[in-house]
């Protein structure tokens, strides 16, 4: 299911915890699986669960709890807009609306060319930079006014 590189990385995560508590590595392992596969099909969740000797439903609980795990396929770029209170008060909702209009899609949808998926996110811990968005769970973008958004979209090829 996963390639050797991912398995090596998961093993390194497992090694951080006591040998009989492998499931402590479930969040990291799911993230690594998602990084390789792009999203988390249920087969991948079950694979990770078996790899960590935990029940599949317990791994599914983790994967469905957190926003950043994608249980459905996403586009090449996943744009997550923060709409929690501080961002909302500072234009987060407007940034989301602007993106929707610009891309012609709603939240949890993907552009027809499969390039960009738009998501609504929870607080990313950078309220001072509001409004914020994050690209592919990794690249944080601050002060996202319309010009900044246009610049970002131009970069996402």
């Amino acid at each position, binding site marked *: 299911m996963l390639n050797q590189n991912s398995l090596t990385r998961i093993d390194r995560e497992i090694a951080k915890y006591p040998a009989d508590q492998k499931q402590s590595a479930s969040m990291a392992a799911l993230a690594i699986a998602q990084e390789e596969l792009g999203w988390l099909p249920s087969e991948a969740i079950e694979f990770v669960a078996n790899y960590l000797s935990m029940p599949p*439903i317990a791994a599914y609980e983790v994967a469905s709890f957190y926003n950043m795990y994608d249980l459905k396929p996403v586009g090449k770029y996943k744009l997550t807009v923060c709409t929690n209170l501080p961002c909302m008060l500072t234009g987060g909702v407007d940034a989301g609306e602007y993106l929707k209009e610009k891309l012609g899609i709603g939240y949890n949808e993907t552009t027809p060319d499969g390039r960009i998926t738009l998501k609504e996110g929870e607080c990313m811990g950078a309220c001072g930079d509001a409004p914020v968005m994050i690209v592919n769970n990794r690249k944080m973008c601050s002060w996202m006014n319309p010009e900044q958004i246009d610049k970002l979209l131009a970069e996402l090829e």
Partner: protein
Amino acid sequence: MIEIEIDGKAVHVPDGSTIMDAAQQTGAYIPHFCYHKKLSISANCRMCLVQVEKAPKPLPACATPVTNGMKVFTHSELAVKAQAGVMEFLLINHPLDCPICDQGGECQLQDLAVGYGAGVSRYQEAKRVVFHKEVGPLISMQEMSRCIHCTRCVRFGQEIAGVMELGMANRNMHSEIQTFVGRTVDSELSGNMIDLCPVGALTSKPFRYSARSWELTRRKSVSPHDSLGANLTVQIKNNVVMRVLPRENEDVNECWISDKERFSYEALNSSERLTKPMIRVDGALREVEWPAALDYVAHALKDIAKTQGGEAIASLAAPHATLEELHLLQKVTRGLGSGSVDFRPRRRDFSADGKRAGTPWLGLKLSEIKDLDAALVVGSFLRKDHPLFAQRLRQLGKKWNKVSLLSVGGDDPLIKLHAQVTVAPAELAVALARIVKAAAQLKNAAVPAGLESVEPCADSKAIAESLLEGDKRAIFLGNAAEQNGQAAQLHALALELAKITGASFGFIGEAANSVGGYVAKALPTALNAYEMFAQPRQAYVLLGVEPELDCANPQQAVAALKQAALVVMLTPFKHGAALDYADVLLPTTPFTETSGTFINTEGRVQGFNGVVRPLGDARPAWKVLRVLGNVLALPGFDYDSSEQVRDEILPAGAEFVASLDNGLNSVALTLNAVSNGLQRVADVPIYFADALARRSPALQKTSDAAAPAARMNAATLAQSGVADGAQVRVKQGPGDAVLLAKLDETVPTGCVRVAAAHASTAALGDMFGSITVERA
């Protein structure tokens, strides 16, 4: 001890108790949903908020440890306001469908809403809707909008059943209880989740919409299935059993029962029930009246006894029969001049008979299991043979991690094991001998005679070590050990091991009355359960047995029955195969329609009464046997009640049987050479184990009721030249069965696992005999 005050009442509780524990002592009721005394604390329903002096806000009683001098108010203004607030939130998304809800009338949310809910809801917005889930034939998850997310079902799976099948997916208001990608809940204890659910989210599928809880009459009963003798509440309506629930008995079943006990009641109302006596006339079975049937049986038996001698008659009872039935059966049989009576149809080795020091039993009380420091189980399909016994060991495994399993099948018992050794049935005695020798060597004790050539391995040393540490340890022999061809050797070896290690030793017991059969002396003085078919008799009296499914060697049993001049069956069911060989069918009643006594594996005497009237002309078997005794003019059959029969066997009022002793006199240890060729490993699948479970439609739809396959590991598959999934013909003696081959790495090399007790394998021979496999 800590002293605290609850609602002005002082109470002393041990260190580490919670407010909830303390409140239970004083009798103060604190409302709760997620708290359950047998499950871990999650404190997520918040219903048990109480006021604690000097605490700035209400605290959850279930999760707050007591401290010295704490003053708790469970019904103060603050506490009641907090509880009412929580209730209002719980009711926000709970549908108002109580009138059509199966839980109505026995719903904790409904009850507490009366006490703590407001008359009118202030909530105007839309309620959330949760889609229904499909989780198999036993649990209905049709109305998941009712769920209040207490997670009792999830914790039950994790902690009691040992397998987490349900979980809570998603977050906050989107949380849903579900299985992984819509799989079924397959645990053999799953029905308890229905009881645990405080609302109507999980309901019983077979019971749904058949009755309201207030229409039902509750009657006490005792489980007729496994040897634990779980206490039951049987609920009836219009003289029909509608439902079976656990009756709490901390010493026996705690507050659980297995799914077999919960759902096999469906068989009581099955269309296969025999309601009229039948006699074979001109080759066909005809319905007759009781006097005619009993006259016929008495004359025929007398005739055979007179012309061919009493020994031409043999009697066999199921170990699920009551104490009274077993006693009267042996009395009738001996009255006819035959010593061939037995109640252990699945046994193969009887060489311990006549050498036992007393009645074989568990060796300790069930309630003592939790105090054990280590345990070894030999020869058992633990989870499927004894679901609740396995549950007790599971809790032990969590605590000490010193439970070991030596068996013939590598099924996962869902217990945290110290060591698991899986060997072929013929090697079971040698494997146990290795542990005995390892223990003797570790303790510098004399190695018992006969074990000179045995070499302990690493696993046997690890198991022996675990049995030498701690105060209380136990060794248990399971069903597969008792049914093994070297059962007496295993018994003797386990006794040696117990002697060396100082552990207690006992049998888990095959069925509801495995101990009772010994107490009732339903034991052979002539031919035993195996010999009576190996040396065919002229007449057979069968009590509750279905020989093609219940015998050690069904092939041989059915052949003997077919040649017999007279086969009398006392049975609640008329089943296909019996119609071929039975000459007389006498309709007897299952446990719900008779009074009687079961003696469980710890020797506990548990009497019960009939809960409904017998169906049709069926009569309790003890009455049938009593009248048969009268018609045969045998002395001592003047009983008026089943209690009189019991009093003849046991001293009145006995709570436990007196003569319990697992000792064995003069059995020498001789380890036989291992046989060549393929061996059969036969488990008795949980839902084929007795006549009731076999006829429960819901249980028959579960994954545990799947048709048997010929399971082998890769090496054995290759050796037999068959592929995984191919059709194969398995042969034992003249009989064969066509099954699917299945790869199963837990089966020992050189073995084929073919389940017994199923119609598709009824033509085969010995459960642990040699077998051949060829492509079909």
